[in-house]
């Protein structure tokens, strides 16, 4: 509310929207849908992107910089743990670090 009221156009927020929280899927814990409408209702300029598509993300930053009368938010849809088969979309990985053997396996998968 403050950023919009004071027209802080040089503020840009980024939501890593992976739909997981510690207790499970966000929509099953306390749903955020429709997240874009919520930000828009607070008078922010909203940009939706695929968070794994860096060209889309960079274009979104350019768009945010071009908006001069309100703050911007980039809602980047992502998959948590993407690229590591045993981590993808598993809420349990929110708050724990991989053990050495898990780390080796994850790094090997990411290198491929």
């Amino acid at each position, binding site marked *: *509310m*403050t950023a919009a*009221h*004071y027209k802080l156009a040089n503020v840009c927020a980024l939501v890593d929207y992976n739909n997981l929280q510690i207790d499970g899927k966000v929509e099953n814990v306390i749903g955020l849908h429709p997240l874009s409408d919520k930000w828009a209702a607070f008078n922010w300029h909203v940009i939706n992107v695929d968070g794994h598509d860096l060209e889309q993300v960079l274009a979104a930053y350019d768009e945010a910089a071009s908006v001069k009368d309100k703050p911007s938010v980039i809602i980047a849809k992502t998959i948590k743990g993407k690229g590591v088969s045993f981590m993808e979309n598993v809420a349990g990985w929110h708050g724990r670090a991989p053990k050495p053997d898990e780390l080796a396996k994850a790094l090997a998968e990411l290198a491929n």
Partner: protein
Amino acid sequence: MIMKPTRDGYGEALLLLGESNPDVVVLDADLAMSTRTNWFWEKYPERFFDIGIAEQDMLGTAAGLAMGGKIPFATTYGVFIAGRGWDQIRTTICYANLNVKIAGMHGGISVGPDGATHQALEEIALMRVLPNMHMIVPCDAIEGRKATLGASQVSGPVYLRFTREATPVFTQETDEWQLGKANLLRAGSDVTIIGCGPVLYEALLAADELAKEGVSCRVLNMHTIKPIDADAILAAAAETGAIVTVEEHQINAGLGSAVAEVLVKHNPVPVEMIGIMDTFGESGSPEELAIKYGLKQKDVKAAVRKVLGRK
């Protein structure tokens, strides 16, 4: 006796700082008329930010302003800023040791008719537990002004506790004021009364009456709760052998506890504590409440008599 609320000293100091330091900015949370930040607002509108009823947002915004090199004074009622904003004060401001000044108005039960929800009785406890924080409780409007100016000279977070009611102005313009250094209000040898805030005036009245009854009371104004003046406390313990603490705050974890923490490690003389006895307040006139909750001269006298009996 001139009567004036300590918050007026805050408003006056902000005007002085507005003129002397262009980096000083002031934030409020929809209470500018009550907190006296409206005086600064009228004179320096480009350096005043009303954040609305959003204390946590105000503290985060103040943190950002401090990171940008400003000296922000974030201001609203103590019950809102110290309680609701504690997480932002702890993790955003104190952890990063940011140069944010926080002013909590309307501390204590003397807020009166607004009742328990608005009577901040916990700020000393909440603030003095935080690393990097400084905690100050001015006793009158003159000290309120000096403490605010002093806070602006400190690098790092400071919490200033102010009060609503017009109360006696009993310090002098010429009195020296230094952060972390207690001021001697009465010399004495039988017992020491250590207090903070406007309730100290009741301690002075008690000391003057006790003097007539042959009891010599030292009275210390412990305006800075953190860092506490351990030297003054230990000198009082060694030279008078008994301590009474006086505060308009919860008896647990407030000034009395801070004094006791020093004493118990070095020289555990008998202590009696005057304060709110682990209960919430209620609606009433400030005078009615001070009587009911035991914050008057007679209560201080009784505590002195009791502690003398334990020497």
